[in-house]
């Protein structure tokens, strides 16, 4: 089954662009048919059909609650109250919960995030702290991709 990589964030707010920028890079480089890669500003309900035939999902996002440049990989479970208060956009866990509730499908999921140093408006570049850990993030992604569909683990 394909693996879905979803990078999300605003491309004009500095390090918030980490997810979509990396997703775009990966998408441009790979020809692996098992990978499906999307870069988005926000997570919305129309993405749910993309999850249906995937057994694994890797979300890429910037984080505010870790040190700038710190990489964190979290296993995600579906949650109906994942953290967003609105349906204009969804938390990754809510996206998984919608998928499970409506289509009875629950892919394994991880959130791979990097601590942001700057989220200024009209800023089109990643900070040095975030830019320099991109190679390490790629290694994390490769490790997740190497896992067989039956492997488990709460942290990578």
């Amino acid at each position, binding site marked *: 089954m394909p693996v879905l990589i979803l990078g999300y964030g605003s491309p*004009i707010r500095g390090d918030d662009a980490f997810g979509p920028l990396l997703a775009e890079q990966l998408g441009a480089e790979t020809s692996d048919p098992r990978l499906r890669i999307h870069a988005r500003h*926000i997570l919305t309900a*129309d993405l749910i059909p993309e999850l249906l035939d995937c057994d694994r999902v890797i979300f890429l996002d910037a984080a505010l609650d870790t040190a700038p440049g710190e990489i964190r990989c979290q296993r995600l479970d579906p949650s*109906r109250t994942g953290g967003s*208060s*609105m349906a*204009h956009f969804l938390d990754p866990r809510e996206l998984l919960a919608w998928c499970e*509730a*409506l289509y009875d499908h629950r892919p394994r999921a991880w959130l791979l995030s990097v601590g942001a140093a700057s989220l200024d*408006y009209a800023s089109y570049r990643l900070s040095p702290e975030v830019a320099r850990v991109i190679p390490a993030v790629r290694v994390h992604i490769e490790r997740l991709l190497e896992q067989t569909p039956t492997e488990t683990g709460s942290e990578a």
Partner: protein
Amino acid sequence: MSRTITIEPVTRIEGHARISLQLDDQGEVADARFHLTQFRGFEKFCEGRPYREMPALTARTCGICPVSHLLASNKACDHLLSVSIPPAAERLRRVMNLAQLAQSHALSFFHLSSPDLLLGWDADPASRNIFGVMRQHPELARDGIRLRQIGQQIIETLGGKKIHPTWVVPGGVSEPLGAEQRDAILGLLPEGLEIAKRTYDLYKGLLPRFRDEATRFGNFPTLFLSLVSPEGRLEHYDGLLRVKDAEGRILEDQVPPHEYPRLIGEAVEDFSYMKFPYYKPHGYPQGIYRVGPLARLNNADACGTPYADVALAEFRMLQESGPVSSSFHYHYARLVEIIYALEMMERLLRHPEILDTRVRARARSNRDEGIGVAEAPRGTLMHHYRIDETGLITWVDLVIATGHNNLAMNQSIRQVAAAYVDGNSLNEGMLNRVEAVIRCYDPCLSCASHAVGQMPLVIELRDQRERLLDRLERTCQS
């Protein structure tokens, strides 16, 4: 003793808002206010940027309706270039705008408002949410996702990116449409139209349940502002401004969009960061008006597509005479517009010149002031720029759809609060109805005005010395 009830936050991420209800000595609502407490300042930080950056910059105002900003901004840039864009480019821009309208309206109806409409205003709040809808009406929830997906797929097919396409450029679009792309889009439309029609029929069947809400949810006389086509038909991309009053009299018609400053004034209040636009000839705040799907249907003489025209005729029957005055019927109007969007996209895509390769007019700036107006899902969107001789932005005015409705949203809250709030005893049903009347407008406070199920709200009852008398809290986990 007069008291104030504060509902905060109405939203908690990006779009921060608060509602305050002022009670009189008898505990009845004397006043109500909708406070936008967030400041983003797009109009200021765009100053000094090259005007050609404006479409990309302002499209980031919103993750849900970026296409609207993209179009209004590019139209303002077209104006700066003093060009008339090629006909094929205009049709392609229209298709993209309609695709966004369909997916945005689908979000509002299927996922934000359906819990109230399908499960009931007074249903257990623990289940009155989108997951409750998924349990009881899974097909409808899937329809909503599919309709959004269709809209997004069309945007992606045209623009290459679902959220912030760069395909629309000053002077037209960057690439013509290929036959394969056109056929792919045409292949999506029949399924979308079937979903839209059956949802419309379902909603009509539900309407008798909502007589009370339709009477009290923002039901008052206002003006209505929207674009209409030169023939007076429903229009979302271009056209001319029309203002109609509550009796259906046309006060302004065929007004070129660049004359909007003659019609629209912008007031400010110290309790909100959202501007208070008003109809200048009537002054502030008497010049209250509404925009968006309700206003567009009230203003249009016809939709111009077969099924939407039937639905429009049924929409007009909601009111004995004159324009439909209740903001509750924004829901109805959205469903009519989804049908229209799907029908009109097919018509545009079957136009013999839709594949024309001439899609972009090229020019340098030929004016120092540009205005672009388009209909966003939530209403008329105005971008107004001034540039210096080097093409750098010196001044920006953005009149956002949700802002036009600010006076009406405030009045709606007052009406609902007066009808449902007992200041001596707060309850969940009251809280939900105050939320729900805001939701009728589908306001986009930087993408943040709605809850997945439950909006986390706190209502506090305080006396004149700000002492807490009563408190009702609802969290996402409740």
